[in-house]
């Protein structure tokens, strides 16, 4: 099933693992360093300079080019979310973010974190930046450029960003851990046969 999601989105409980989704509206990119800084802002009771209400956070470091007075996205795609796993719980708690976009998934321990914060994880194909960057309409704003271009926060206006698969939903399902668990069971059999 293919679904169109328009930002802002507050309630993601209707999304289930296996759904194919496309997102239209604003998305905010964040990786390791920006996630860390965002949490530090909230923990010291300082409001971050951008709004995250109802906006998906995209684990992504785009390729950008300076054009007169602004920026243009040359390429973008998901980065490996596992690097942010240790920060996930605090991140969802302080930010209130309901949709996280990235690749590679989280381990089983994070399945419950998504459930608790009623959030979902969506995965576009990794590396498909020529395809995915077609959905970028413009760079709305850029923050924390001191972190370097890939680690900075890019607020992007996108039209039908996707395809993405809902891979962890808010009901406790996680495709990555299901696949891994099955694979672990298969390994001894495969080894016995070769």
């Amino acid at each position: 099933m293919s679904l169109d999601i328009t930002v802002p989105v507050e309630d993601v409980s209707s999304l289930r693992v296996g759904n194919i989704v496309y997102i239209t509206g604003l998305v905010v990119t964040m990786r390791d360093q920006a996630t860390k800084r965002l949490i530090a802002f909230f923990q010291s009771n300082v409001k971050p300079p951008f709004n995250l209400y109802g906006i998906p956070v995209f684990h992504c470091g785009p390729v950008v080019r300076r054009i007169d007075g602004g920026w243009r996205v040359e390429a973008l795609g998901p980065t490996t979310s596992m690097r942010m796993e240790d920060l996930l719980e605090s991140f969802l708690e302080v930010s209130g973010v309901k949709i996280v976009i990235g690749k590679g998934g989280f381990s089983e321990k994070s399945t419950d974190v998504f459930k608790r914060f009623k959030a979902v994880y969506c995965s576009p194909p990794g590396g498909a930046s020529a395809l995915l960057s077609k959905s970028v309409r413009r760079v709305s704003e850029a923050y924390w450029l001191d972190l370097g271009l890939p680690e900075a926060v890019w607020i992007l206006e996108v039209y039908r960003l996707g395809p993405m698969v809902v891979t962890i939903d808010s009901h406790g399902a996680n495709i990555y851990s299901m696949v891994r668990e099955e694979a672990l069971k298969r390994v001894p059999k495969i080894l016995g046969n070769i």
Partner: protein
Amino acid sequence: MELDFEEVLLDVVFKLIDKAVKTVPIDVEKALIEAYETETSEIGVKMLEAIVENIKIAREEGGLICQDTGIPVFIVEEGLETPWRIDYHRVFTEAVSKATVRIPLRPNVVHPLTRVNTGDNTGVGIPVLHVVKTDGSDIKIHFMPKGAGSENVSSFHMLTPVKSVEAIKNVILSRVVEAGGMPCPPTILGVGLGGTAEEAMLMAKRVLLRPVGERNANPEIAKLESELFEAVNKTGIGPMGLGGRWTCLDVKIEYAYCHTASLPLAINFQCWAARRASAIVKPNGYYEVL
């Protein structure tokens, strides 16, 4: 006019970088199309469809295959009879720096502790450079932009010689399952077998230059490649780790003899966006991008 060989190399390397980040080699594309046509999981098909479409768009519109334009790795085969004395590190650094602005590439290179970005994909020890001497007078340059998703799950193991083949298979399958979707499967597995610790990893990286589907010339190694290829694709990890038939496009092994007490094994994962480009440069400055 006297030949400015360094200028030629700068030109060649720029072209290699430009080609590598915007295309995947034909053998890789073929393998991905075959995977798309034969994948059995619905989500897997969706992922592979997007991947194949992505390659097409990048080719037609000159866009980047992947936003992670990687860390620059160069492997040079320098003919023993070349009349030129080249400071490859200096030339490649200049080419990478220029390419970062002009193509543009994503500036990925940072200090390992402070994480401060140099802005131009160069830095202490970067670009990574390996030079080997070969016969003849040509210089062959290979460029591989290596993404972090696949590099981060690479591993090195010192195995016990008594267990040999079973242990090799067990370790590789376990690593594939552990890595899951992180290295962007279907991957290509580069395996370095034997040698020493550092040599094993270098072999695992270097073997990724060989085309998908080509088997090692040594029949025992070729057999192990085929067996591992089948075994990895039975794990069910699938495209992007979301389940399915295609977990890897190939397994490639380079081997060296080793100490009687050792069995070094290195695994270097390569993502489906297995970008690489090579060129041969003649002593007279004529070159061919392969």
